[in-house]
């Protein structure tokens, strides 16, 4: 059984936000509009946050793209009163939209704020509705439930149905939309349980770190520290 994980090389990331856009298109993430965005209602399964490190004049801005961390010990799963969020056998943290009661306890529990609530009925302005992903697993979520990144669970399912390989280890391997679209080639996806996979090897790199590792959540999204780029990786 694979244990899916992701590695993001912060040296290759240009903070172009293509991952965010690809994710929205692939997973039918709804529009909040400018007003909704300003009121904190926008949904971003993937987002990019900025940090400033160092002290003036030696400052450096770093950008951190954030999908769901798909923790091995997910605090969100622990607190769900109805089992609407769960970890599947491949280590992904998924959401049962039809069971969620909208209490938002999981959102409070997530130390990465990677969960989003449907504050209102999802909308697609103008012709955007025509470009929605028809996959049954990405259909618009009803209002009042929580949703989140799934590591593009539907892409992996289709790959298995069609007998195609999965992961960045194969030239034609199926990967989540954010990995596929990444303009800098900064993202890698694959099986962390396979010691020879690209993600396993990168996760063992001295540059590798995870966000808020000290919390013991064991995220399966690894980052490679910026400023130490090695062309061969």
């Amino acid at each position, binding site marked *: 059984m694979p244990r899916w994980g992701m590695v993001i090389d912060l040296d290759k990331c240009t903070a172009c936000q293509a991952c965010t856009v690809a994710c929205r298109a692939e997973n039918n993430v709804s529009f909040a509009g400018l007003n*909704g965005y300003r*009121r*904190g*209602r*926008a949904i971003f399964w993937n987002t990019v*946050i*900025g*940090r400033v490190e160092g002290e003036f004049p030696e400052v450096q801005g770093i950008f*951190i793209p954030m999908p769901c961390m798909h923790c091995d010990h997910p*605090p969100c799963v*622990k*607190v*769900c*009163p*109805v*089992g*609407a969020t769960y970890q599947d056998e491949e280590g992904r943290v998924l959401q049962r939209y039809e*069971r*969620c*009661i*909208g*209490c*938002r*306890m999981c*959102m*409070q*529990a997530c*130390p*990465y*704020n990677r969960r*989003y*609530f*449907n*504050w*209102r*009925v999802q909308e697609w302005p103008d012709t955007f509705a025509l470009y929605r992903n028809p996959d049954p697993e990405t259909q618009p979520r*009803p*209002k*009042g*439930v*929580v949703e989140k990144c799934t590591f593009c669970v539907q892409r992996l399912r289709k790959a298995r149905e069609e007998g195609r390989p999965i992961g960045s280890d194969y030239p034609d391997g199926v990967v989540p939309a954010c990995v596929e679209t990444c303009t800098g080639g900064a993202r890698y996806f694959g099986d962390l349980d396979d010691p020879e996979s690209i993600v396993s090897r990168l996760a063992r790199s001295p540059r590798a770190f995870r*966000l*808020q590792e000290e*919390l013991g959540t064991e995220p399966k999204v690894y980052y490679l520290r910026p400023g130490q780029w090695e062309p061969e990786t």
Partner: protein
Amino acid sequence: MERRNEPVDPRLIQPILRTGAGYYLLAAFLSAVVAAGLYVWIRQLRLGLAVTGMNHPVYWGLYITNFVFFIGISHAGTLISAILRVTGAEWRRPITRAAEAITVFALIVGAAQVIIDMGRPDRILNVIAYGRFQSPLLWDVTSITVYLLGSITYLYLPLIPDMAILRDNLPADAPAWRRRLYTLLALGWHGGPEQRRRLERAVGVMAVLIIPIAVSVHTVVSWIFAMTLRPMWHSTIFGPYFVIGAIYSGIATILIAMAVIRKVFHLEAYLKPLHFRYLGMLLITFNALWFYFTFAEYLTTGYGGVPHEMRVFNAKLSGEYQAAFWAMVFSMAVAFVILLLPHLPAPRRVRLPAFRPGYALATAGTALAVALVMVSQNVSGATQAGLAPSPALTRLLTWLLVVLLLGFGVSVLPVLRRNIVVGTVIAAFLVDLGMWLERFTIVVPTETRPMLEGYTIGIYHPTATEWILTAASFAGFALLYVIFVKLFPIISIWEVQEAEEVIPQMVEKVKGYLPGV
């Protein structure tokens, strides 16, 4: 013992039978507020929680604040009718019913807040169908359900003899439905020794059982917060801190209810200054406990100085939540002074001219004017028009306000001192206000400062929907109470009557403490 023909003080039954125009006016007003709440709630169901000010990452707002507050004041009943009963405090007798009714209604209104807050209230039964006991929310569902059922039982059991009294003492022209209702609820009570023995036993058992349940309720309410990793929620003292606050606000609420009942139904003979004095002492005790817990919590956080906790800490003490935080501290401190006044020795030869009602009016009026000036300077229109107040002026006005309020406080001191009921009730209002603010400053500021460094800072402005539903919750609570006093005696008739029989027992008991016997 046959109690059927024992004369009943008509003052205790009058509130049920005589209904004035004021009652209908109040009931209509409260119903109107509740109806407004229902309207905005239905609108919220249709449009989603987007009609509230909640957002990413402030996932919970006023609804959860109200939830914690109402579940908190539900601890009034447990304290008065269970703890005081178990410890044999005889003065509790006229208050038990009023307190236990607060418990039941506060629990109903508190539980309703959760349903208002849910994104999918239509799926509430999933909690039973798929309930997971690993989730703190399920601990709450279980604990609050048990407490509600237990409290209803505990409200009903001591009501049985009173139902029989009403059944037997109803005037001939009383409506038939009342007679049927009381006959049904009296369960054939005739006050025989076996019935009394069984009732005493059942009430005794419930009184003991309800105490750990009540403690568990507010403990698990706090654990909703404490079990997450969020800064200033993830605290080990949250359980006891919330229970203390709950009983504290519960006592304050029962004091307000008592004062209203006493005034409206002319029950001064039953709810005496003594009761206000005793409950006021309990309120002082819990005030001190509350300050102790608050101090311990904030000192530990501030001294530790963990960066993600300090962000929340500073937001509360000196950031955008400072007004709410310091208003809370101020309310509690003033309540403490007011409550302590009657217990201090009378100042001799103090002839300060400040102790005059005229000065009180003057300072209060000026303070109000200053406050209005400050508010008008802060309205968004003025800020946008470039008329934002200078920080120096704001600071000056704030100090002026503080001085004026202090002056007001000093000039009303003798009044509060002389009238313990008025003083205690003002303190109780301040305590309830302070406790609501405490719940708010616990729930919201933490959410605005996510733990993850670099993450967006949250902003939360409650919308009209949330304020209307908050008002409707308070009105609904009052409405349930107003309906209750019209159907049931708000002072437990048989328990007060029984007090006479207890006097010889009490004398014997006290003699038993002495070495001579």
